[in-house]
């Protein structure tokens, strides 16, 4: 759609990979945590700016990297949330250091891993080679496992272990699917690297053997679906979110789940390019609805604030998978918009929750009460963010959910009923929990926290503005990508 507006003096795609990779090495060497936190923010900002330059770069599909309209959306969103999270992280870790939960050595490790994770995620998004994409997602999993276990408590290590084992199984299944895709492609495309290049596969997909491609997609959906956190493969997600440092919860929810979803979408496109294959939509819709309903019920019984929002992430990933499974211009548009809004809102929630847990010294919902009285800025920020994620107007999440529900009623009215039921369930649960957290008599623990509200405020402003007014270029862009997704 948008051709190169101006010739860029450099090619941004490799730079987006090189900055975090170099920063990871550099941060592993810097001993002072203040310097490394600043460096972390700087590197993230630089990566985000380069990602913006991608908008003006020509679309390429080389043997290694691919830049198309679909992955630019993911890369820009990814680098933006990574940047704001690094700002939040800088204020969060200072407090963890003061309370002695982390040592400077831990932080050195943490910062290096943060950048390594970003490099891996960007590589997964930009790689044109399906094998390299798989390796990148594996590396991203490994780095997050290490960060989930950072606190070295019994629960943290158990969570990291569970995440590790389930994530590895998911990744192994995804590899089997990738091998099958190569075997499908090999008789048509020929032996060698071409059989794994996505853009080559897309051109030749019509000649593939549909039966084996179907089997491959099932493995890929199960494998990468584990990483998306789709039911029934979601068991790792709540533990991993609740036991790690909160910036990592934000990155996991806001970014890594999207990257895995992106992998699923790439293969869905491949399936859609062949008329004789099984429609991938119903499978995705089934897993999406199952995640939505399961998370809707599970939300009611949560006692830990971070687990609560982890289940909310399962719910929303389910919604997004449902939207892309439903397909069609409106549902795909809703899916893209919802993914963007969920990333922004959920990370804003985790920014607030991180500081709340520091102030109250606990993650137990029962011990967090009356925040709007004791900490007005934090409390009201959380109220706005939770209201937004629950789908109250005028936030952007409401708009995407509204689009999705109307599209579902138009095309699959019978599926719209459980969809609406799930949305209402989750809404009720979040509102019930929110009233306890935010209002009433404040619970003890009212330390003043040196919090940076800026990242949260920026995210919430974006979400609210998006609900009221979407800039026409963005709408045109999303509409175009939605058309690509079929």
């Amino acid at each position, binding site marked *: 759609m948008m051709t190169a507006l101006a010739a860029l003096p450099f090619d941004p795609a490799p730079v987006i990979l090189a900055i975090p990779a170099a920063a990871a090495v550099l941060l592993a060497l810097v001993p002072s945590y203040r310097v490394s936190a600043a460096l972390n923010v700087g590197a993230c900002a630089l990566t985000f700016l380069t990602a913006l330059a991608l908008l003006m770069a020509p679309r390429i599909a080389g043997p290694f990297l691919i830049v198309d309209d679909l992955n630019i959306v993911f890369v820009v969103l990814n680098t933006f949330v990574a940047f704001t999270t690094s700002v939040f992280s800088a204020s969060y870790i200072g407090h963890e250091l003061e309370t002695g939960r982390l040592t400077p050595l831990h932080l050195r490790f943490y910062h290096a891993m943060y950048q390594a994770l970003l490099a891996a995620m960007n590589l997964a998004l930009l790689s044109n*080679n399906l*094998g*390299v994409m*798989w*390796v990148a997602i*594996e*590396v991203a999993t*490994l780095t997050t*496992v290490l960060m989930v276990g950072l606190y*070295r408590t*019994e629960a943290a*290590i158990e969570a*990291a*272990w569970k995440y*590790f*084992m389930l994530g*590895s*199984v998911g*990744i*192994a*299944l995804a*590899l*089997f699917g990738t*091998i*099958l895709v*190569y*075997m499908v492609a*090999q*008789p048509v495309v020929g*032996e*060698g*690297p071409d*059989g*794994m290049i996505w853009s080559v596969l897309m051109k030749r997909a019509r000649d593939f*053997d549909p*039966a*084996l491609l*179907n*089997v491959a997609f099932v493995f890929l959906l199960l494998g990468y679906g584990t990483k998306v956190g789709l039911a029934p493969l979601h068991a790792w997600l709540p533990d991993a979110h609740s036991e790690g440092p909160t910036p990592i919860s934000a990155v996991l929810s806001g970014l890594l789940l999207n990257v895995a979803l992106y992998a699923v979408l790439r293969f869905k496109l491949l399936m859609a390019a062949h008329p004789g294959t099984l429609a991938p939509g119903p499978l995705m819709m089934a897993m999406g609805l199952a995640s939505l309903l399961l998370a809707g019920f599970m939300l009611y019984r949560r006692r830990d604030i971070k687990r609560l929002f982890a289940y909310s992430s399962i719910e929303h990933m389910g919604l997004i998978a449902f939207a892309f499974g439903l397909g069609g211009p409106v549902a795909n548009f809703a899916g893209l918009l919802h993914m963007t809004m969920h990333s922004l809102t959920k990370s804003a929630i985790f920014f607030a929750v991180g500081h709340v847990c520091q102030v109250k010294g606990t993650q137990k919902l029962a011990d967090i009460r009356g925040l709007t009285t004791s900490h007005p800025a934090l409390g009201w920020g959380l109220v706005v963010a939770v209201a937004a994620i629950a789908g109250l107007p005028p936030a952007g999440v409401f708009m995407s959910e509204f689009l999705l529900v109307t599209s579902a009623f138009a095309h699959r009215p019978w599926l719209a009923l459980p969809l609406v039921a799930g949305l209402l369930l989750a809404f009720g649960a979040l509102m019930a929990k929110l009233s306890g957290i935010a209002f009433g008599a404040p619970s003890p623990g009212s330390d003043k926290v040196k919090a940076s509200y800026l990242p949260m405020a920026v995210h919430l402003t974006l979400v609210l503005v998006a609900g009221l007014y979407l800039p026409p270029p963005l709408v045109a862009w999303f509409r175009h990508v939605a058309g690509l997704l079929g």
Partner: protein
Amino acid sequence: MIEHAITPNLVFDVAHLFAGALVLISFLMLYQDRLYALLNVFALQAVALALAVAWQAYAQDAPHLYLTAFIALVFKALVIPVALHRMVARLGIHREVETVVATGPTMLAGIALVALSMVVMLKATPAADALAREDLAFALSVVLLGLLMMVTRRNAVSQVVGFMSLENGLILAATGARGMPLVVEISVAFSVLIAFIVIGIFLFRIRERFDTVDVDALDRFRGGRA
């Protein structure tokens, strides 16, 4: 298709023999109830994998696959089993048999899974060449049996052995696909993953035994015994 002195039939049969051996050894693993025995059987499977991969390297004229075979032989048949052996000995858990499901039903489930993978793969791949499609059916059987082992065991070491056997199936599938790129890279990536897992178990088991992951505690314990 092959320019070697041996007939295509023999190439086919030997490849089958090794792939079939992997499936058989997966079954052997399912009913081991001692960790030492399990590790020995796993090492045997890794040797079978190395042979299968080396045969594919020869049959496909793909010298880089010898590297994958070498990694399987050294890393998975030797380094990892020895490391786990020592770990099990040091932690004194070699008698632990924690199965969730009894051996009989597990074996039956295993047979059902192998039948399933034969049906799925042979039906889905009529177009592919015979060697690849039957190799793929065996590979899927090994993958599914590895998964079965992971869900029927509670003990961390045997879960990891299940995972590694699952991965053997993946390597078998990857080397069976003619000219697949990145096979060596992927096998290296998996070795890194497994090394991490093994280190992870080590920390994990220490926590269970000593109630801490503090390495000092281990040093104190060692010092106390010496």
